[in-house]
């Protein structure tokens, strides 16, 4: 357990003190939101209808892009070999890195999204459902992205491959995330529960899959 905390703390420290972490992901999110009305036209009613879905797609892409190199640096400088030889199993390392990524990227993005929603004329009544569903969903997103990051860790041009592998797995999170933040009260509750279930299932399965893929590269 203390190893888990140590790994999470290490990654959080790196994310905060190194450039290219949280700030860049937020910047990407902001740019996406600014570009959207330019592409769709400034119609306020249209933007209000599209806002939850558009914010979810933006969340998906920013989490994916920031997590696609989750293991890259540690793999290249050899830290990952040391972690693999250490006392903690590789599954725990993968879990710790996904958790740190969620805390440093997914959570800030999920909290910032409803605020950016004002730019898209988001319905004020939809702010809380959106925030809660995004906080839940981003955990699943970070975990699923860790599988893609592990699968492509040793590849020189893995960036596009990660998107091709991970985005199809994001589909259920997107569907239930949007209906949890934009559906009626009953649908929203049911969708939120399914979203929570998706997060819990990926909490169990994603570290296993990521560790299996990492082992293929560490041999």
């Amino acid at each position: 357990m203390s190893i888990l905390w140590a790994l999470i703390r290490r990654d959080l420290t790196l994310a905060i003190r190194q450039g290219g972490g949280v700030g860049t992901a937020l910047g990407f999110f902001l740019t996406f939101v600014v570009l959207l009305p330019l592409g769709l036209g400034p119609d306020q009613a249209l933007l209000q209808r599209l806002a939850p879905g558009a914010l979810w797609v933006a969340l998906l892409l920013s989490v994916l892009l920031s997590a696609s190199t989750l293991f890259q640096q540690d793999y290249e400088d050899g830290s990952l070999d040391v972690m693999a030889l250490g006392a903690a199993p590789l599954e725990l390392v993968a879990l710790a890195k996904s958790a740190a990524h969620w805390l440093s990227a997914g959570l800030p993005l999920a909290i910032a999204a409803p605020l950016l929603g004002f730019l898209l004329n988001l319905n004020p009544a939809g702010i809380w459902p959106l925030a809660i569903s995004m906080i839940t969903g981003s955990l699943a997103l970070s975990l699923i992205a860790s599988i893609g990051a592990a699968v492509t860790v040793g590849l020189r041009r893995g960036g596009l491959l990660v998107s091709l592998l991970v985005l199809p797995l994001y589909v259920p999170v997107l569907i239930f995330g949007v209906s949890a933040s934009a559906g009626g009260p009953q649908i929203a509750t049911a969708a939120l529960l399914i979203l929570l279930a998706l997060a819990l299932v990926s909490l169990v399965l994603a570290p296993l899959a990521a560790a299996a893929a990492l082992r293929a590269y560490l041999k």
Partner: protein
Amino acid sequence: MQQFANPARFLALANRILPFIWVAAIVAFAAGLYGALAAAPADYQQGETVRIMFVHVPAAWLAMFVYAVMAISSAIAIVFRHPLADAAAKCAAPIGAVFCFLALATGSIWGRPMWGTWWVWDARLTSMFVLMLLYLGYIAVWQAIDDPHRAALVARVVALAGAINLPIVKFSVDWWNSLHQPASVLRMDGPAIHSSILWPLLVMAIAYTLLFLALHLVAIRAEIGQRKIRALRIAAIGER
């Protein structure tokens, strides 16, 4: 199954049964196509376009079946370290992708006269499209990683992670209201379609499955040949 871990023994068996599978596939296709195009009655509502069903539905079944074969092979590769399981999974992927594409294309052609549109973003269609993307991702993994042993280890993870989509495809029509009709053959209380249409459909499904079996065996045979060539090349470099 373990005795076919020896590629030579597997090849001998494959060579012996392949002609029979080809013949059976051709016979099944002939019977199925006759039943589908000539014997089956035209639908009272859909007219002759209902015959698209006989090529569309088996392709969709096979697209899911082949992914299941891929996922099960990958699981066998992880659990039993069967040396041909990875080859089986690798060779199934392109065939499954083509079946998936056929299901999407014929469905689109069928949807144009029936629903009045080539494509709708409905649960069944979207999840089938996602299945297509999973196939492409899996194939891309094999192509992106140079070392075949490492590629096999990574591809297993990708195949099993994508298998989560299979139940979503199957039950998408029950979970969401959709334009696509719900399951009408594999149901708890028996098929909901008339026997005059049901039997050509089942024969076509058998024909598609036999075709997949034949193509899969040929592909695995080619894969074993490729491995052998690779091993010989490496040995030749070592001798030089």
